[in-house]
């Protein structure tokens, strides 16, 4: 399958009127431009085959084959300010085939073979399904999904060097991804190749559900920005009251820490349409240090995939610690774990360490000793968030935390 190419608009420009925006988006989608960051199916198959050949050649020569996996540990992670995400370093862990590694070596190759079969058959397997498929491998079967997941992570790390991620290897997560509504048309193809144009304004009181793999989707949009929301309840409110129409934005429900596919979905929107991305989460260390941080720069433990899954253009709309003061929000006390998490972020997280504004915001939060939820705004009226808070905030995107 040929790589579909997309060009992000070089000139972002101020958000215009709805109609012109759609035209602009369509025009962009048709413009040939720089390659997407990810590889095509053909490249995936080629990488798998090349790796297998290297192993086979090494054996044929009477040597012991090895696989060089990037070390997936915080010691091998750095924050690349220019690119805007946590990046995996150059350390490699060479796994040489030996008596002790022969089992995992066999399992790794078996799983790679499965991946090739899936790509060629244009199918996928969830992590759980892959675990059950391994039950056909007699002695090489996985005893536990933890084992198959770990091997899968190894393979993903191995292929991340060639810009191939797990979804392209056709291994999908089980989790539900996230919901989308707003002025966005998703062009999707199902297994039969039938093309579906999905209008995300057309779901009534429901919403579009982000699929596990978003690589093959095409988009058309006239939106001015993407608004990511932490909780389903808040998303429901904004969606029901057609906030996307009023502000001409795409609403995305993250449901806590966003899944890989949501992050990838938003990343593509932000890259390909040069859309600003704003995050609207609870004001607590979890919302800031886990949800927002993972969205923006990725996570330390999966640094090998951050380059696909982070959204470096994301900004933090709220709720900020200063909002608690400005909007006189009702609060709860910070728990010990919250304080610990915030202090840990200040001390160890390369992202927060690199941003003075975040440092002072976190310090302010610790000093206040309280947290506030998005829904706390309801104290001022159920639709206060729609009528007052968000419009007022959106007047000054430059004030958003980095």
């Amino acid at each position: 399958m040929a790589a579909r190419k997309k060009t992000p608009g070089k000139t972002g420009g101020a958000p215009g009127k709805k109609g012109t925006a759609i035209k602009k988006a369509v025009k962009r989608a048709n413009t040939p431009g720089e390659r997407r960051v990810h590889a095509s199916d053909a490249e995936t198959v080629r990488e798998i085959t090349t790796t297998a050949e290297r192993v086979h050649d090494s054996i044929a020569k009477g040597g012991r084959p090895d696989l060089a996996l990037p070390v997936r540990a915080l010691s091998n992670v750095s924050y690349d300010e220019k690119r805007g995400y946590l990046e995996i370093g150059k350390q490699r862990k060479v796994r040489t085939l030996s008596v002790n590694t022969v089992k995992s070596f066999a399992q790794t190759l078996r799983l790679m073979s499965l991946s090739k079969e899936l790509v060629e058959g244009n199918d996928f397997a969830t992590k759980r399904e892959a675990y059950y498929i391994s039950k056909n491998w007699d002695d090489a079967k996985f005893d536990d999904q933890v084992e198959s997941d770990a091997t899968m992570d190894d393979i993903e790390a191995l292929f991340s060097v060639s810009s191939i991620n797990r979804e392209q290897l056709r291994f999908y997560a089980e989790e539900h991804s996230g919901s989308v509504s707003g002025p966005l048309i998703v062009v999707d193809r199902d297994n039969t190749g039938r093309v579906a144009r999905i209008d995300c304004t057309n779901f009534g009181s429901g919403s579009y559900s982000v699929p596990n793999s978003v690589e093959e989707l095409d988009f058309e949009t006239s939106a001015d920005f993407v608004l990511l929301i932490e909780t389903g309840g808040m998303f429901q409110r904004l969606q029901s009251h057609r906030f996307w129409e009023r502000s001409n934005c795409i609403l995305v429900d993250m449901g806590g820490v966003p899944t890989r596919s949501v992050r990838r979905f938003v990343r593509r929107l932000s890259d390909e349409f040069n859309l600003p991305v704003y995050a609207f989460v609870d004001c607590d260390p979890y919302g800031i240090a886990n949800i927002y941080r993972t969205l923006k720069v990725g996570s330390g433990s999966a640094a090998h995939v951050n380059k696909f899954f982070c959204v470096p253009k994301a900004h933090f709309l709220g709720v900020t610690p200063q909002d608690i003061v400005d909007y006189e929000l009702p609060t709860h006390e910070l728990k010990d774990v919250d304080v610990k998490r915030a202090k840990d972020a200040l001390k160890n997280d390369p992202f927060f360490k690199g941003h003075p504004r975040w440092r002072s915001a976190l310090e302010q939060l610790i000093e206040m000793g309280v947290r506030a939820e998005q829904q706390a705004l309801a104290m001022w009226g159920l639709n206060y968030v729609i009528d007052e808070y968000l419009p007022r905030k959106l007047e000054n995107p430059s004030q958003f935390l980095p």
Partner: protein
Amino acid sequence: MSKDKDGDAQQSFLFAAKATAARDSSRGGGAPKAGKASKRETPRSKTKTKTKAKPKSKATTKAKAKPKPARAKRAEPAEAPEAAEAPEPRKRRAREEAAPVTAETMSAKQRDISVSEFFAKNRHLLGFDNPAKALLTTVKELVDNSLDACDEARIPAEIEVRIDQLAEDRFRVRCIDNGPGIVPKNIPLVFGKLLYGSKFHRLKMSRGQQGIGVSAAGMYGLLTTGHPVRVISRTSPKKRAHLFEIAIDTQKNHPAVKREEEVDWEHDHGTQVEIELEASYRKGQHSVDNYILQITLANPHASITYWAPDRPNNQEPTHKFERVTNDLPPATAEIKPHPYGVELGVLMQMLRETKLRNLSGFLASEFSRVSIRLATEICEAAGIPSGRKPDAVGRPDAEKLHKTIAATKIMTPPTDCIAPIGEELLERAMKAIHPAEFITSQTRRPAVYRGNPFLVEVALAYGADLPADESGLVYRYANRVPLQYQQGACAVTRSVMTTDWKKYGLQHPKGGLPVGPLVVLVHVASVWVPFTSESKEAIAHYPEIIKEIKLGLQDCGRRLGIHLRRRKRDADEAKKRDYITRYIPHVAAALQEILGFDDAERDRTIETLTGVLERSRKL
């Protein structure tokens, strides 16, 4: 019956009464009436009348009469229940009645306590706390005595133990040995008097040491069933056997012979003892079955045949253990006490009782390892003339002497008085009972605690038919006798718990026993094993003894550790070899799937890779 003081007191009175009744009836010519168990449980009121009646029927001495008012007083509240509801006045009244208490009235209550009476009240001290334990203790006392007798007479022991269940809670224990027998005139004393025996007054390694056991068992039987002990003994094929039926008079601590006659007996020599008792038969760690198993482990020179009460066939023995060796344990010598082990009071008593005329002679001949020269030195150092008459040495001088002895360097006592089982026999016996993959043992050299020589033997069996995830079994022995109760209080258990078994490759929870298919056998042999109580259930925590046990455990543990490490290495090796043959085909199959080569190439890949890994493993 209630366990409170009153209950016990009543029981002993009742017992005394019954004993009297039994004696009376036997004197009357009839056989003793079988005291039914139900009789023992007669209501209290009945007991009381009996008790009250008893002193009256006897010649009322001052001492005997005394308990009567006391009992009458106690009975009073029962007769006037309304008084019980108002405890305050009752107390006052009791005080009024008892007054005035003077030294004179109190002196009238002060009297001798017979040993038998004491133990009848405190039967738990001798191991008769409950019916199951009573059965075990009875069997144990009989078998221990038989083994002692055979060993001492240098006869390879052949012992038969038969337990018959007569009723729900009624058992008869019979033990027959081929020992030297007992001369008829001593039989009543051996079986009918507590603290009578040959073993207490000497320092010699033997199973029994106090002269309580068998008579206590007989007393318990009489107490619970009314049946006297039945003994048949024959000392030589030339003589006829004697049959005795003996009860024990608890107040006098004296045997009461119910029946004595000459009988024909199929054995040339030996003793048969029969005790009927109230008991219950259980399985498990504290069972008679387990005792029989353990006693054979420590006595590989004895043949023991055992008929359990639940045997399916009446004639077939439940267990028949043939001796593993024909060599008797070496005869053990009797030794004199070592000066280090003598306490001041004992020393003073010995000084009073000795027949020797002067102090240095006394020291040299009453103690082991004291020569005349050393005795003279001690006297000089203590500042007491060596020629002084021992009974003229006063308390202050005796104390000086005692201190001087402690400060003098004296050779450790002779150790030929202890007969170990021996490493080889221990291992053979262990193997016969626990077919383990690894067995090791160590007999340590004799050591001394408080002037008493002792010796520790340790055997370990690993990988026996035991669960791997439970605590290991600990078999404790003192002078070849298994100790089954009070495991927690025993120096052996303490030693096993405080040994670091993790070092030897076993799991070992803190403060517990090591976990695994493990049997730890510890045998402490001594001329005087220090037990924590008269029932001889646990060895006292002497640091010297614990140290020796731990050294033995550590030595055996190290050998076990080597074995387990080697086993693990072998298993790892086998596992690795297995890994190669198991997973290489999958490597090749996966490569074949991805690259699409033919089966021949796949097989070639398997072969090459196997060779590569086999070579790498050897490096």
